[in-house]
C-alpha cells in the first residue's frame, strides 16, 4: 500500500474550508491496493495460511454462532444475540432456536463450554440429508456414502442457505438442545465479506513458521514476498548469460557466487538444499529477494525505460486510445468466456478446468472494466479546468507485440489461438503494457501521485492477467477444443437475430449511462454508473439475452456504434 502523505493543513479562509467540506473531495478516488496484497495472490490455505487462513470462513457457518473447529470437534466460542432477530426475520434462524441461543450465551458467560455433537444437513456434492456425529469423523472414510474426513470439511461442504440443524451439548452436563437454521452466507449482497466476520478474523490464525519449516514446505506455501524458487544473484563483474536467469532453490547449501547455482527441481528436497539443521545454522546466509532475484548488492530499482510523450495533447490522445483498448479487450475476453461450455454439462477434470477458465476470463474482463474507469479518472484529473469528455470509443485496432504494430480485434471462441493472442496482448513490456509504460513515464514527469498510482495498478494487473492466461492455457491444454467449446468455429449471430439485436440495445444503453456517469464525475455520477453495472449483472437484463445467444451457439459480440461518443477510434 502506498503511504498517503500525513499532513495537517488547517484551512484558514472560507474557500479552504469549503474545499475541505466538499463531498467531491471527501470521496477521493482510490485506485486500490497493489495486486500482490489481494486475496487471490496471497498464500491463503488451511494448514493454516501465511497471509489468510481460509478455515476462518467456517467459524460462523451457523447464524449467530461462532465456533472453533478441530478435526472432530466443533466448540462453541460465542453467541451473537444482537444479530439473532435479523437472522430470524430473514429466515436463516428458526424462532425456536432463539431461547436456545440465549441459554448457551448465558452458560458460556458463566464459564461453561458447549460443543456441536451432531450435524444434520446437505453436504453438496456428497449428497443430501446427512447425519454426522462429529466425534466419529476420522481421516479414513469408508462405505457407499463416505463421510467427510473431518469437521471443517463437513462444514465447508454445506451449501450456503441450505437447511441445517445442530445438536449442541454442554460439555460437562447432559443438557442438550437443537438449533435449526440455514447455512450462513459468506458474502453480503454487495459481494463483501458478510458483516458477521470481524475485522482481522481472516488473518487471526496465521502460520508462524519456524525456520526449518521451510525445509519441508511446498512452493505453494511460501509467502509471496518470500519465494523458495528464485533467480540467483547476478555476478558483479561479468556480463550475465542466460544461465543466470534459471530458477534455483533459495535455500541451496552451496552459497558460492562465482558460478550459476544448480537448478531447482520438482523432486523432494534434494541434497543441493540445506537440511533442517543447516537452515537453522545458516539462516543469515540466505539472501534478500527482490523482483524475483536474490540481491547481494545495494538494490537499485529498475528505471522505467519508456520515453514520455512529447506533448500533453499526445498524452491525452494516447490515454483516450488506451481506454479504447480496454474496451476492445473486454469485447474479446467476454466473447471467449461465453464460448466455453457450461460446466454443468461436463464432468471430472474437464468440468473443473472449464469452470476455472470461465471464472478467470470473467474476472479479467471485469478488471478491464475497472481499468476503463481508471483511465477515465486519470483523463478527468488532467482536465481540472474545462469540460471533460469521457473516453468510451472502442479501439479500432489493438497494439501488436512489436512497437508501432497493431492487430485487429479478435472476437473469437476461446480456442488455443485466442488464448495465445490474449497472452501476447497482456505480455509485460510490449503491446498494451508498452503503451501504459509511456503514459506512466509522462505522468512521472508531470502527473500527480494518484494519476501515477492508477496507471501503475493497471500495469500490475496486466501482468497478473498475463500469468492467468498462461494458467488458462495450461488448464485447457489436456482437453480437445471440441470438449470445452460450444462449437469449434463460432460466428457472430446472423443479421436479424433478435437476441443479438437486443444485446446491442442493452450495450448502447450501458455506454450512455457510463458516459453520463463519467461526465458528471463522482460521487454524483455514481448513480448512472451503477445503472450501467446493473444492466450487466442483473439476471433479467443483459445476462438473459447472453444466455440465449450462448444457447444458440453464437459468439457474444458487440457491433460498432455510429454515435461519435462510442464509434471506433484509430490508434493516435
Amino acid at each position, binding site marked *: 500500500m502506498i503511504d498517503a502523505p500525513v499532513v495537517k493543513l488547517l484551512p484558514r*479562509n*472560507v474557500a479552504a474550508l469549503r474545499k475541505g467540506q*466538499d463531498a467531491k473531495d471527501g470521496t477521493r478516488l482510490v485506485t486500490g491496493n497493489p495486486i500482490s496484497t489481494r486475496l487471490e495472490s496471497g498464500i491463503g490455505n488451511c494448514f493454516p495460511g501465511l497471509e489468510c487462513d481460509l478455515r476462518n470462513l467456517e467459524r460462523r457457518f451457523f447464524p449467530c454462532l461462532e465456533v472453533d473447529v478441530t478435526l472432530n470437534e466443533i466448540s462453541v466460542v460465542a453467541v451473537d444475540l444482537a444479530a439473532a432477530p435479523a437472522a430470524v426475520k430473514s429466515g436463516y434462524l428458526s424462532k425456536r432456536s432463539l431461547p436456545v441461543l440465549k441459554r448457551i450465551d448465558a452458560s458460556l458467560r458463566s464459564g461453561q463450554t458447549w460443543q456441536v455433537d451432531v450435524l444434520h444437513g446437505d453436504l453438496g456434492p456428497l449428497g443430501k440429508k446427512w447425519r454426522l456425529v462429529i466425534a466419529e469423523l476420522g481421516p479414513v472414510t469408508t462405505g457407499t456414502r463416505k463421510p467427510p474426513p473431518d469437521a471443517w470439511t463437513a462444514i465447508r461442504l454445506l451449501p450456503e442457505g441450505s437447511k441445517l440443524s445442530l445438536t449442541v451439548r454442554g460439555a460437562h452436563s447432559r443438557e442438550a438442545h437443537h438449533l435449526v437454521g440455514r447455512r450462513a452466507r459468506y458474502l453480503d449482497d454487495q459481494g463483501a465479506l458478510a458483516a458477521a466476520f470481524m475485522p482481522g478474523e481472516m488473518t487471526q490464525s496465521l502460520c508462524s513458521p519456524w525456520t526449518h519449516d521451510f525445509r519441508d514446505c511446498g512452493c505453494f506455501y511460501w509467502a509471496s514476498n518470500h519465494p523458495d524458487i528464485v533467480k540467483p544473484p547476478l555476478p558483479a563483474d561479468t556480463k550475465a548469460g542466460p544461465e543466470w536467469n534459471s530458477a534455483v532453490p533459495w535455500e541451496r547449501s552451496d552459497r558460492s557466487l562465482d558460478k550459476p547455482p544448480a537448478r531447482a527441481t520438482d523432486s523432494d528436497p534434494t541434497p543441493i538444499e540445506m537440511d533442517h539443521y543447516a537452515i537453522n545454522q545458516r539462516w543469515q546466509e540466505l539472501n534478500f529477494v527482490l523482483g524475483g532475484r536474490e540481491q547481494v548488492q545495494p538494490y537499485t530499482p529498475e528505471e522505467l525505460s519508456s520515453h514520455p510523450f512529447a506533448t500533453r495533447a499526445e498524452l491525452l490522445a494516447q490515454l483516450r486510445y488506451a481506454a479504447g483498448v480496454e474496451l476492445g479487450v473486454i469485447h474479446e475476453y467476454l466473447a471467449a468466456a461465453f464460448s466455453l461450455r457450461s460446466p454443468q454439462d461436463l464432468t471430472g477434470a474437464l468440468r473443473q478446468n472449464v469452470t476455472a477458465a470461465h471464472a478467470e476470463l470473467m474476472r479479467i474482463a471485469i478488471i478491464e472494466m475497472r481499468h476503463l474507469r481508471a483511465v477515465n479518472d486519470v483523463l478527468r484529473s488532467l482536465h481540472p479546468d474545462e469540460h471533460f469528455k469521457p473516453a468510451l470509443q472502442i479501439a479500432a485496432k489493438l497494439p501488436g507485440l512489436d512497437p508501432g504494430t497493431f492487430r485487429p480485434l479478435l472476437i473469437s471462441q476461446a480456442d488455443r489461438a485466442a488464448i495465445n493472442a490474449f497472452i501476447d496482448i497482456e505480455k509485460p513490456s510490449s503491446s498494451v503494457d508498452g503503451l501504459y509504460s509511456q503514459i506512466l513515464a509522462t505522468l512521472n514527469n508531470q502527473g500527480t501521485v*494518484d494519476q501515477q498510482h492508477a496507471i501503475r495498478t493497471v500495469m500490475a494487473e496486466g501482468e497478473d492477467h498475463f500469468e492467468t492466461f498462461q494458467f488458462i492455457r495450461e488448464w485447457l491444454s489436456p482437453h480437445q477444443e471440441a470438449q470445452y467449446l460450444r462449437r469449434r468455429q463460432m460466428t457472430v449471430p446472423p443479421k436479424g437475430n433478435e437476441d443479438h439485436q437486443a444485446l446491442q440495445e442493452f450495450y448502447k444503453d450501458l455506454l450512455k449511462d457510463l458516459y453520463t456517469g463519467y461526465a458528471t464525475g463522482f460521487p454524483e455520477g455514481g448513480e448512472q454508473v451503477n445503472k450501467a453495472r446493473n444492466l450487466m449483472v442483473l439476471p433479467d437484463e443483459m445476462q438473459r439475452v447472453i444466455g440465449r445467444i450462448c444457447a444458440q451457439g453464437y459468439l457474444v459480440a458487440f457491433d460498432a456504434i455510429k454515435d461519435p461518443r462510442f464509434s471506433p477510434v484509430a490508434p493516435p
Partner: protein
Amino acid sequence: MSAAPPLEIPSPSAPAFHRFRSALGEHVLVVPFSRIYDLEDDFSRRIDHEDHDALGLMTALSTPGTGEVPLSRVPLPAPQSISLNVSSSCNLGCSYCYASRGGFEGAQSAVMSWEVARQAVEKVIAGSDAQGPVTIGLLGGEPFVNRRLIHRVVHHARRLGLTHRRDVRFSVTTNGTLLRDSDIRLLRDHAFAVTVSIDGGAAIQDARRPLASGARGSFELLRQHVSPLLENPGSCKIAARATVLSGESDLKQRFADILALGFTEVGVSPLRVARGANRFADEHWRGYLAGLMEISTAELERARNGAEIRLSNLSIALKQLHHGAASPFACGAGGGYFSVAADGNWYACHRAIGDEEYRLGDLGGLDARRREQFLLKRHVHAQTDCQQCWARYLCSGGCHQEAASRTQSSCDFIREWLDFCLSAYCELSAARPAYFGRQS
C-alpha cells in the same frame, strides 16, 4: 446567449500555490480559488523542497470544488449592473480626470436624456437575473450637474424593481460640492453607496481639484455640502476616494485629514494613466507601498482592539481573502457590468466612453460576438505577463484601462501588497475571528 468557448487551461508550470509567513507561522495560498491554509513546519519544508507528494496535494487543492466555476471559463452573465454617465460636465477642473470633466475628449458632448436613461434602466432590470441585485450607478462629469435626471432615474428604477421583483441598488461617485438637501434625502432614503472624490486636506484638495474656473475652495465647498450626510447618513454608505499622484509621500496625513471630515472609510488609488508628469512611474511604487503599509499597520492594530478598518484598500482585500475571491477578470466590465454613454451606447467600462473597442452595444442590445471577443482578450490567461504570476486570480491583471501601464515594478507592488494583506488576514482572523463574522 451562447457560451464562449473555454480558454486554454493554464500551463502546468504556472504556480499552483504561493508560500507566505505571518506571525502565526507558515501558510500557503492555493492560487486557483484563493484557498489559504496554515501549515505545520514539516509540511511547509516539504513544499519548499518541492516534495512530490506535497506538490501533488497542492495541485489537488487547485481543482474546482462543487459550485466553483473553473477559472478558465469566460462567463457571460446577464448584465446586472450599469452606470449612467448622466452629465458631460463638472464644476471642478481636476487635471487628471479620466473623463476630462465628463466630456471624454469630445466623445460625450451632451447630457444624458431621460429617454436614454429610462431605456437603459428598463433594459437592465428586465434582462437581469432575479437571484442577484441590480445596481444602477450614476457617474459624470459631476452627476449632480444633472440632478433632475438622477432623481427621476432613481424613482423609476425603484418602481420597476417592485414590479419586476428585483433588488435594485444605487451608487454614485461625486465630488460632493453640489449636494443639496433634496439630494441628501434621496441618497439616505435609497441606501446609496456614495463615493466622494477627495484627495486630502484643504491644501491638497484645493490644489489638486480646483473649481472649473481655476479658483481654489473646493475643499470648503465639499465640507459644507457633504457634512450633513456624514453626520446623518441614513441608510446610505459613504466612502472617500483619494487619488495619489506620483511622488506624493504624505499618505498618512492625507488619510487623517479626510477622516477628520467625518468619513469612516477612505480608499486611495494611484494615478496610473494620465497626461503629464503626475502619473506613477517605476520609481514611485516603493514609496507608495510604504505609505499604504504604514496606514494599514495602524488600522490593523485598531481592528485587533475591536474597531473597524477605515482604509478600504485593506478592508476590501481582507474581506476578499477571507471568502477566497478568485477571478480571471479584474472587474465586471463587459461581463455583468456596462456603462451607458449619453448617446445611448453601451461600453464595457465607464472610463472608456468613446473608445470604439469598448463599445459592445447600444439601446438595441449587446453585440454578443464583440462582447465575447472583448472578454476573451482580457481574460487573465490571455495576458502573457500574468501567466506565471501567483497573484493572477487576485489582481486578475488589474484595470483594463491601465493594462498598458503594467510594468515589473507596478506588478511587484501588487504582489508585495497582497503578501502584506495575506499575512494580515491570517493574523487578524486568529486574533479577532469575529471581525470576519461566523465562517460558514
